[in-house]
Structures are given as structure tokens and as C-alpha cells.
């Protein structure tokens, strides 16, 4: 006889039975892989190269500019590797990204030996060289999309990480402690609920000196925790009267231990659901902001900013279709994952289905 699965094991088994939810999960995992490997999929900096006897990974500069080895600046590479590597060190070798295209600029003529300059304006129709076309400035849309994945996933996870942490802490305190703590946290939650996220983002972006994508994520996170807090509070209210909690208390466990070790794991399943939906919502908000031109500063590659480029010329359909489909599928996938999670973990829904 197989060992009896725990709660999460059972939930996973039930989740696996739902093909749509599984497909969505695979899609999300795939996106995460693309996000992490983005510089190796599309870029103009070698993934790994050997130069003057040492190994470097200049592609990491796509994650953070400071990770680009200074030797290339010293040797006046000026951002262009293929010819400079060969010219300045004939012994050098390099592993290149799958697609030699940059998400921030148009690749120039003959930058990669024999490759023509990227087409610009409405000439950038999808072709073999540019499967997703190029935008007005000649930047390859595929490269932008791949690097935009990083932005989309980061926005989702970072903002919901912040929101989840705040929401769970506030909700747990209110639900478990009750009394004036509950009154206070509930009122705070209600106040934050009234803050319009979009307007707040616009206002803060106008104030700060150097707005980045991280500011957007922080604001979404700091305003998006209210739903999570209310759910957590409800779960904690319900569970703090449970027998095992009374037992733990009788055994001398402190309130922090009871909250973290005993109640939280049992409350987690319903809390995960709004977090998943929140990720989808955060991606939508970021895309919307970029579309309106208030998102991450140019030339950050974000799906919304590609859409924004289509506003001035609707004839460039590839600037609408590819990022549009990507946003749609990603948001749909997160919602499906959330729904699958809900059905797999909520016993009441399970009962109803039988």
C-alpha cells in the first residue's frame, strides 16, 4: 500500500487531473525558463567567451549593467562583440545567444558578419530573419518579447511577494489577536483598499528622480495586499478555535509559533489563490502603464511598451498581435493556475463537484 499523501500531495494529485490547469502551469514554468535564459536566447553579447586567456559571461549585463566585465570597455568594444573579439584576440572564442538580436537597439549592418541592418518603420514585417518583425526603430520584436518576459514575471512575482508578505502578516495578526489589533488592522486594510493603484503609480512616478520598474512593482505590492489580508484574517479567525490549536496552546506553544507552525500551513491554500490572481493583475497593470507610456523608462523591453509603439501606426499589426497574445496567454495562464489551485485545495468545492 502506498504511503498516504499529505494535504499538499493530495492537492497536487487533484491538480494534475485538470488538463487546462496543468497546461497553464507548464506554460508558466516555460515562461519562467524563458525569463531566466533570456540573455542566452536573444542578445548581442556572448553567453560565454574566452578573451585574452580568461572566461567571461558578458550576457549577464542584460540582467544588470554592472555585470559586464570592465575589460571590454577598456578595450573599446563599444557594445559590439562579434568583430571586436576576433580582431582584438584571434585566439578568442564565444558561445552566442540563439538569436543575435538586441532588445534595446537595432542591430547595425554587418555587425554580425554578412547580416544586413534591421529594417525600421513599417518595413519591419515579420520575416525569416525577424520572425516577430521589428519596431519603428528597427529593434527586433522577438528579442524585446523574450526580454519582456523577464519584466512580466518579475512584476508578477516581486509585487505579489511584497503583497503576500504584508497581507499575511496583517491578516494573521488581526485574525489571531482579535480585539483592538483586529480593529486597527481592519481599518488600515480598508483605508489602503481605497487607494487607487494606477493613480498612485502615476503620481509617484512623476515625483521620483529616477523611476524604474522596481518602483512600479513596489507600489503594486504595497497597495495590492488588502484582499490577501482579509482572506488570511478570515482563515485565522476560523482556525484559531480549532482543536489542534487549543492543543498546541495547552502544550505551551507561544503565539508566534502557533501562528507560523500551526495555523499558517493550514490557511495557506486559500491564500495562494488570490496571490495567483494578483500576479495576473500585476502583469496587466504593468502592461497597461507601459502602453500608456508611464511604465518602465525607455528603452526597457516590456510587452506593454511594444503595444505602445503600435499606437502611432496600426498598420504595423505585428506590434499588436505578438505582445497582445503574450499578455493574454500569460494572464489567462495565471488565472487558470489560480482556479486549479482553488479547486484542488478547497474541500467545499470538491464536495460540490462529486
Amino acid at each position, binding site marked *: 500500500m502506498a504511503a498516504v499523501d499529505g494535504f499538499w500531495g493530495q492537492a497536487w494529485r487533484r491538480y494534475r487531473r485538470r488538463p487546462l490547469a496543468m497546461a497553464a502551469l507548464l506554460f508558466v514554468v516555460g515562461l519562467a525558463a524563458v525569463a531566466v535564459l533570456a540573455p542566452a536566447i536573444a542578445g548581442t553579447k556572448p553567453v560565454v567567451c574566452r578573451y585574452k586567456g580568461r572566461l567571461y559571461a558578458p550576457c549577464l549585463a542584460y540582467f544588470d549593467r554592472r555585470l*559586464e566585465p*570592465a575589460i571590454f*570597455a577598456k578595450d573599446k568594444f563599444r557594445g559590439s562583440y562579434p568583430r571586436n573579439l576576433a580582431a582584438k584576440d584571434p585566439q578568442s572564442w564565444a558561445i552566442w545567444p540563439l538569436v543575435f538580436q538586441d532588445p*534595446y537597439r537595432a542591430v547595425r549592418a554587418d555587425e554580425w558578419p554578412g547580416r544586413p541592418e534591421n529594417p525600421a518603420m513599417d518595413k519591419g514585417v515579420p520575416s525569416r530573419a525577424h520572425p516577430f518583425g521589428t519596431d519603428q526603430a528597427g529593434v527586433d520584436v522577438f528579442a524585446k518579447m523574450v526580454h519582456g518576459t523577464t519584466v512580466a514575471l518579475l512584476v508578477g512575482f516581486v509585487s505579489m511577494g511584497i503583497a503576500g508578505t504584508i497581507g499575511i502578516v496583517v491578516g494573521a495578526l488581526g485574525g489571531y489577536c482579535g480585539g483592538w489589533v483586529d480593529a486597527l488592522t481592519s481599518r488600515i486594510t480598508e483605508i489602503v483598499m481605497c487607494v487607487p493603484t494606477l493613480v498612485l503609480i502615476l503620481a509617484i512616478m512623476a515625483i521620483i528622480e*529616477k523611476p524604474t520598474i522596481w518602483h512600479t512593482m513596489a507600489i503594486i505590492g504595497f497597495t495590492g495586499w488588502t484582499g490577501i489580508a482579509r482572506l488570511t484574517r478570515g482563515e485565522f479567525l476560523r482556525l484559531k478555535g480549532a482543536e489542534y490549536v487549543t492543543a498546541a496552546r495547552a502544550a505551551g506553544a507561544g503565539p508566534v509559533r502557533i501562528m507560523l507552525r500551526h495555523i499558517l500551513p493550514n490557511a495557506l491554500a486559500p491564500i495562494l489563490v488570490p496571490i495567483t490572481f494578483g500576479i495576473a493583475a500585476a502583469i496587466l497593470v504593468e502592461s497597461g502603464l507601459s502602453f500608456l*507610456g508611464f511604465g518602465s523608462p525607455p528603452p526597457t523591453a516590456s510587452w506593454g511598451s511594444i503595444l*505602445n509603439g503600435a499606437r502611432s501606426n496600426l498598420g504595423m499589426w505585428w506590434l499588436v498581435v505578438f505582445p497582445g497574445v503574450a499578455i493574454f496567454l500569460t494572464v489567462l495562464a495565471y488565472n487558470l493556475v489560480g482556479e486549479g489551485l482553488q479547486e484542488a485545495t478547497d474541500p467545499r468545492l470538491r464536495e460540490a463537484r462529486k
Partner: protein
Amino acid sequence: MPLFLPRHPHGPAGWRCLLAAGVAVAVVGCGRSEKPRLVAEPESPAAPVMPPEPGPAAPAEATFLPPSLADLDRDAKWIDRPVKQGLAVLREQQAKEPVLASVAEALALRNDSPEANAKILSALGRLPEPGAADSSARLDRHVTGDLSSTNPILISSSAEFDILGLTGFGLFSFDRALEPFASAETVVSWQTSADGLYDRIVMRDDLVWSDGTPITAHDIAFTYRVIMDPRVPVPAVRSGTDQLKGVHAYDDHTLVFFHKEPLATNIWNINFPVLPRHIYASTWEEDPTLKDSPEHVALEEKPVCGGPYEILARKRGQEIVLRRRDNWSTFQGKVVREPPYFRDVRFRIIEDPNTALLALKSGEIDEMILQPEQWTTQTVDDGFYELNTKATAPEWVSFHFAWNIDEPFFADRRVRRAMSYAFDHDRMLEKICLGLYQPCAGNFPPGSWMAGTKPLVPYKQDLDKAETLLDEAGWSDHDNDGIRDKEIDGQLVPFEFTMLVNQQPFRIAICTLLKENLEQIGVIVNVRPVEVTALQEMMQKRTFQACLSGWGSGTDPDTSENIWKTGEMRNYSGYSNPEVDRLFAEGRRELDRSRRGEKYARIQEILYDDQPYTWLFWRNSFYGFSKSLRGYVFSPRGPFHYSPGSGSLWKPRAE
């Protein structure tokens, strides 16, 4: 007809206005009237273009006692000045120009080459043969924003200047080459004293306001008093008039303008819009705002007009319809002036350029300004050419990166030059401006009399030179992180700065190109798009490091003094050079055009060497026109904002 020149409050004759952030503010003369106005670019709502007048103006006339005309005649040696009719001047010029194509040919052409453009302008830009114009036609113009006032002296936005150009009364104008003259439609003679201190005008006696009351010299003297009264909130037209000592009407038709100093710019100072004295004399003292009292509210709706058109109807936010005045062209039953070609002129208010293009394609409007991308990609198909054609010409609107010299980065001239050497100017012209704009290397339009004979060449991209200059200035990579830095006050400051730009893809693309170029040599640029008004405020307070902005030029180089002179209001770069300051002061007092030109050319050379700006391009005019429209002729300030300007447009009689 008069063209009114709005002045910047801090300049003797404001002919340059801030284009930062998308409100292109060109000072323009209105078609049939000679005072220029400001235009907002179609991509942005028409914002008030001139900043409001700060501080009260000196009370005029209170202390000024004009001498008698006999005394004046005895003291002054009068020199006759030109009195012309804008349309007649243009007709003469066109008679000498060769016709490059027939109308039918031009209408069948696609404007895809300079030759085609020249043919279209040559054939369709002609004035009508006598009787060829349809005198009952309506012109549908496009403006990007509504009026905030119809009062002539409260004008400030581009739409207000456009309307006033057709409805306002004035004495002076300037032609396609921006040469000033007195308008023969309103003036009999214009004389200036040899010492440059007086201008004497004799007005025609066959002029009436739209209510039938005669227009006299007293109206002009009265308007001057109202403009200069500090209680009246005049946004744009007071700068210029504040350079006058006084204006005095000796009788109904004789008028003398008294100047404080004999300046080359005096001609622009005596050119201001005119109010009907019989209407406002009794009301303005009670309500100096000219807007609030019931009488003034009624006048806002139905102003008494002195120009060839009057306001017929107005739907706020949608349209303004003007009707031709019969008592403008006829007096006591006789035709005394050439009537304007159109019976009605309708101004359609459409903010969004994409919506406006749809309106043009469907024939709802007869003309509009086209964006570069619209010009190259959205006006090339049969759908556009079915009803419309398009034309282009150079215009005096230039764009630049402005460097804040007070910042540690840009105090050193070598660094500013390095910025210019790092920027891929050619690529910008070719790939972002799509080859549509002219390269710009200095502050005065090439080929103009103030730009000198030696044309300036833009700094060509030369990264080695840029790096050498930066190394010389002390900006090199001391801490080996790939980014240049310099020790300032014991701290290692990395060369990383913020470039402000307004929210327009086209302008952002230029900044992104600079970012890419500078990153190649270890300088980090953060491009930060901001909203128009925020950008203007940061420039005015000088809380920026660098920004992309532009200036629209007017008619006289003197007005750019407040951009370059030490400590001036619009000297956003914080530039200071005693020689430039001195040359501006000398230029204003030099009355000889060629000697004056030399001074301004020298200023331009100094600025070129110092590079307080990295100059980018001159933005040309790009217009879409209905195929039924004729008579568009371009000046350095576009097709409408000179004399005759919009007054030269006509539609042919139906066959």
C-alpha cells in the same frame, strides 16, 4: 492685414518660444493679418503658448506728453517706409516664378520626391486668375485646441492667433521673407524719423468695424493704453509695446508711435492687435479683466471685429465659424478692398492627430499638419490621394539637447563637445527623422541673414574624439567598472545623468539613440519621459541635467537674447559669455542689416564652439491639403503665418 507678433515678456520682441515637450510654439502671423501667433503642434492639445505676463507694466501715457505735430515735423526728418498689399506682393513674385507643372498634372502626382513636391507647390500654390476662385466657398481649417478668449488683446494660444489673423484689425504685416511692411489695406503712408525715434502712420478713411462704426487712429491709441494698464491681464501682446514711450492719435487718421530708443526691433514693437474704442471705452474701467462683466461676456460670444471676417457661430470644443464681412471690402457702396476668397472659414477643433488624419481623408477638413510617421507611412496610399495631396517646405523650428552647465558634468566645454561628438547625428536624421528634416548645427536658420555666410556643419559622430575629450576633462574609468567617473570634492562621481524628454515616441527615440551612443563610451544616460508642463517647469526652475527641447523662431534674432544672455529667464542652460551678451546689445542698436547680421553670425560661431546645446535638426513643415484647395505658399514659418498666408488660399469655381 495685420499680423500680430506675440512677445515674450522678457524679450524685446518674442519670436522664439519654447517647444519643449511638444507644444511647438512658433510665433506666427495670421494669414490675412500681420501679427503672428503661436501654434501648438497637432500631437498635443493647444496649450497657452506664451507664459503669462509677470508683474505689472508701467502705466503708459500718464507721464508722456506728446509734442505737437508741427513740432515733430520741424524736428524729425521723415523717411518713407513700404506700404504694400500682401496678396499683390505675392502675385508679383509668382508672376516671375516658372510654372513647373499644370494643375491636372500636379493633382495626379504623388509627393514622393523633391521634384514632385516642387511641382505640387508650383502648380497648386498659385493665386487664382481673376474670377477663377469660388467666392461662395467654405474653407475647413484644422486647429488642435479651442479658444480661451476672442478678445484681441487676450490672445495667447495658437488657435486664438489663427482666428485673430482673420478677424483682427492691424496696421502692419510681413511677407514670405519676413520683411515687415505697412498693410495697404489699412494704411495710406508710413514714415519713420531718421533718428529712429518716431513712426508716423496715416490710416485710410474707409475702414469700419463690423458694427459699422469707423475705425480711427484713436482706437489704436486707446488699445495701447489698455494693453499697458497693469490691471488688464494681457498674456502675450504686452511685451513689445512695453518698449514704446507712447502712442498718440493727432486726428482720426494720423498716428505717431514714440520709441524709447532707436532699435532695430522697433518695427515689431508697434505691431499689436486693436480694440474698438467705442465698445470698450465705457466698459473696461469697470471690468479691467475684460472677461467678467455681462457686457464683456456678451462680447466674448460676439466680438466687434475689424478684420475681413467676423465670428458667425461657435460650438465650444468643436468648431468656430467665421463669415466674410461685406463692409470690409465695400465702403459707401464702392469696392475699396479686394474681398477675401472664402465666404466662410470653419475651424474644426481636433486634438488627436490620428483622428484629424481620418477627418482629412474623409474630406471633413481641408488641411492639417502631418507627423513624420504620418507623412511616410499613412499618406502614401490611394485612400489618401483620392481627396488629398500633401506638400512640405523648410520651417524655422529647431530641436536640440540642452545641457545644464551648472551640473558638474556639463560645466566643462570639452564634455559638451564630447556629447556632440558621441551622438550619431547622421543616424538620427536618416532613421528617426526619416530623412525629412534638415540637419541643425546652430541657433539661426541656415541661409537667413543672421546666420552668416559660412554654413555650420553638425558635429559628426567620432567616438575616439569624444573619448579623448572626456579623458582630457578628467572623466575616465578610475574604478574599473566600465563607467567613466571623476573625483569631485573627494567623491568619485560616476558619469550618469538623466535626459528629460516629453512623452512622444519620436523624441524618446532620439534620446534612446543618445543613450546607446554614450553607453558605448562608458557614459550612462537615463531617459526619462515627462509630461509637457512638468518638463517646462523643470526647465524654468533649472532642476534638470539635460533635456530634449526645441525653439520656434520668429522674425528677429534679437528675441533669442533671452535664451543666451547671462542670467536671462529662458537661458535654461545657464550659459554665460560676456562676448555674446555684448554682441546682442550691439545687434539691437545696429540699424544696418548686413552689419547686424555679422554680429549674430559671430554669436552663432561662439555658441557652436561652446556647444551649450547639441543642435539636432530643423523641423520642416509637412501639410496634407485637400485637392480642392489652391494657393498654399510656404514661408519659414509655415504656410499660414505671414502675409498673405492663409489669405492666399482659394478653391476653384466648380466647372
